[in-house]
Structures are given as structure tokens and as C-alpha cells.
């Protein structure tokens, strides 16, 4: 359960992405291991989301390869699916269900037998204790993002991949994200995040990867 019990290494070797005929980036190489965060920056359309989807195992790289613990992994590889927690642009919440029910469903999918109070606790940590019985339909964008943060905390995965985690979050939400990230990295977790603003956490353990648009 604790990421610290094993050493984790994610290697990206000369990754390249193409969308249609356009080359987004080529030759992206990085390595992230226990307790480290990689901050991906770059202008709009430089391929940040594509790079993150590649590392999550959703998209196949046009060139290069991704290695988890030294083994090459392809999209939807079972080894990667065991460890990755992906928070993308989409909240993956059902409008008809309450935050509590949404989180309970994700935990159940993960086989993690979380106690009931763990969900309440996680929602409390992102200041959603009062909204936990409301349907997600009535919640704001920022509140939906906060449920995503609560999910990260509940499904304990060593590799976090966060796409624009600061979007729609207020100062208090950003603070909650910072605390969550700090705890994750301190416990030996890995994180790859893309954002236009600096991450609110663990600057000394964070390296920056700047994506520059590839020459056409």
C-alpha cells in the first residue's frame, strides 16, 4: 500500500508525439523516481496533455518508449494500470451521484477496501464535508476538481499524473493540493504534472520539463 515499500522508476526515452501531420514534440527524455515530481510546462498546444496521456498509458507514443521499473510498457499495460492515478481535464464524476457515491465507486473499482469514514475524511480535507450528500450536478467546477483531489488521496497509487491540477481551484483548494502533493512525495510517491502556474508544493523535489513546440 505505501509507495515507500518499493522503489519506483518511470523512464521516458525519446518520446515523440504527432497529431495528424503536426509534430507536437520529439526527443522527450526524462526519469522520475521515488519522491520526485516532474513539472511539465510549455505554451498552449505544445503537447503537455499528450505527454501526460502517454505516460498514463492512454496514448501510444509515435516514437520512443516508456519504461516502468525498467520494463518497456505499452498503452493500457497491466503493470502501469496497477500504479497510475490519472487526473485529466475530465472529472470522471457522475452528475446523478453524490460526491460520496462517486468516490465509493472509484474505491470499489480499485479493490481498496476503504472504511466509510475514510471517504468522509477525504472530503473533509478538501472542504466538501457539507456537500457530500448533494448530487454532483449542483457542484461548481472547483468543487468537482476537489473531489478529484479526494480521489487521489483515497486510491493510493504511487504514480500521479495530473493535468492542469490548479484549474478552477481557489486559494484554499490550491493549498489543499499542495498539502496532498507534499504528503504524497514525502511518502515516496511520484508525480508528473502539467500546469501554467508553478506547483504549490515541494519545489526542491520538483524538476521542470519545458516543452518547446517542435519546428514544423
Amino acid at each position, binding site marked *: 500500500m505505501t509507495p515507500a515499500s518499493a522503489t519506483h522508476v518511470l523512464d521516458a526515452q525519446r518520446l515523440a508525439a504527432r497529431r495528424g501531420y503536426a509534430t507536437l514534440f520529439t526527443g522527450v527524455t526524462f526519469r522520475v523516481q521515488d519522491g520526485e515530481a516532474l513539472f511539465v510546462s510549455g505554451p498552449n498546444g505544445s503537447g503537455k496533455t499528450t505527454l501526460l496521456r502517454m505516460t498514463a498509458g492512454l496514448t501510444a507514443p509515435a516514437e520512443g518508449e516508456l519504461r516502468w521499473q525498467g520494463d518497456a510498457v505499452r498503452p493500457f499495460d*497491466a503493470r502501469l*494500470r496497477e500504479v497510475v492515478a490519472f487526473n*485529466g481535464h475530465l472529472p470522471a464524476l457522475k452528475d446523478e451521484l453524490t460526491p460520496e457515491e462517486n468516490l465509493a465507486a472509484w474505491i470499489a473499482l480499485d479493490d481498496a477496501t476503504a472504511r466509510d469514514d475514510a471517504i468522509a475524511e477525504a472530503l473533509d480535507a478538501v472542504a466538501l464535508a457539507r456537500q457530500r450528500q448533494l448530487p454532483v450536478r449542483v457542484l461548481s467546477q472547483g468543487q468537482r476538481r476537489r473531489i478529484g483531489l479526494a480521489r487521489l488521496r483515497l486510491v493510493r497509487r504511487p504514480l500521479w499524473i495530473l493535468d492542469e491540477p490548479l484549474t478552477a481551484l481557489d486559494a484554499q483548494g490550491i493549498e489543499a493540493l499542495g498539502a496532498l502533493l507534499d504528503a504524497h512525495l514525502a511518502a515516496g510517491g511520484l508525480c508528473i504534472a502539467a500546469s501554467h502556474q508553478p506547483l504549490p508544493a515541494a519545489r526542491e523535489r520538483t524538476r521542470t520539463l519545458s516543452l518547446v513546440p517542435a519546428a514544423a
Partner: protein
Amino acid sequence: MSVNDRSDADAAILPAVGWALARDIRVALRSKAELGVQLLFYVIVVSLFPLATSPSREVLSTLGPGVLWTTALLASLLSLSRLFAGDFHDGTLEQIALSPRPLAALVSGKIVAHWLTTGLPVALLAPLLGAQYALDGTVLGTLMVSLLLGTPILSLLGAVGAALTLGTRGGGSLLALLVLPLYAPVLIFGAGAVDAVRAGLSAAPHLSLLGAGLLLALVAAPLAVSAAVRIALD
């Protein structure tokens, strides 16, 4: 694929089916209006034919099985767009595909939920609606049995089409073009079973073929759907 398939087989399948089934049923029960619309569509379309054609028992009982089966096809088609599109647009599908559980099992659960909320009510309503077509008890019974066997095939085949058209523009009409031809054999054997009974023959050959088709679709469709979902997410 080989690596994925091996570990997929190792993982527990039934809990994954149950998870997706329970989740989709719960969501469906919270949006009952949508379910009602599809059933009402079925009821109304079936009831329009006797108004538009002749009231003679002879004509109606000839038309009946075909109308009920064709309308069941359309009702299933109408609800297909709901099967994956919502999950695709809110990111649920992404998370399901990234979970360690076998994707084929998770989509199977969704397909079962689709059948329980659309195909099953259609099959159960059929004898009631069939009464408008001057069909007698045995014929109505056969109609229901053929729909009970056939509508799951519609859900399974339709799921393949729904997954293949994810993220395409004009997916709805494309889906109809893709799926309706695949539905044709189900329609032929389904309506054929009812016609056989009306002609005083046994429905067993038709029903056996429907059952065989169901087993085949049950094995093949979830695998095709999970491959299509992964392509859609790329």
C-alpha cells in the same frame, strides 16, 4: 495485447462486471425520465401501426410480429448512444480503461445494465402490446421468449457500434448505419420464430439459432468493445 490479455484473465471478472452493472443501474435509476422516454417510444410506435393500416384481424396478425420486432430494434438503437457517450465525455471511460480490472468485464457490466434497462422492459411489454395485433396466447408467449433471447444480442452488437463511433462527429446517425445491418439476422430469426408458431410449426429452430447467436455475441462483443474503447481514448 498478449501481455494485457494474460493479466486480464488472471484478474477477477465477475466483481468487475458487478461493479459496472451496479454503477450504471444506479445512475439509470436517478435519471428515470430517460428510461421512460425509450419505453414510451416503443409503446407509441407499436400502437401507431394498427391506426395507420387496417383494423382487420388478418392484416394485423400478419404484421404484428414484424412490427413488434422492428420497433424493439429501433428502441434499442435509440438508447445505444447513451451506453458509452456519457462516460466518454465525463472521463469515466478513461478511468475505467486505466483501472487494473479487466476492461472487457467492465464493459460487459455496462452492456448488461443497458439490456436490463431497455431490452428487458421491451420484452416484458411485448405481450401486452401484441394484444393490439390480434395475436393469441401461444404466439404472444413465443414473441416474448424470442425478444428475451434476441434483445441481449441487440445490446451486445449495438455496444460494439456505440464504442466504434465514440468521438466521431455525427456519431448517432453513423451508429444507426453501422448497427442496423448487424441487427438484421436477429430480426429475421426473432420474427421468424413468431411466424413459425402462427403457421403451426415449431419455433425451436429459430429460438435455438437466436440462443447460439447470443452465446457467440456474449463471448465476442465485450472483447471487440474493449478494443474499440481503447482506440477511442487514444
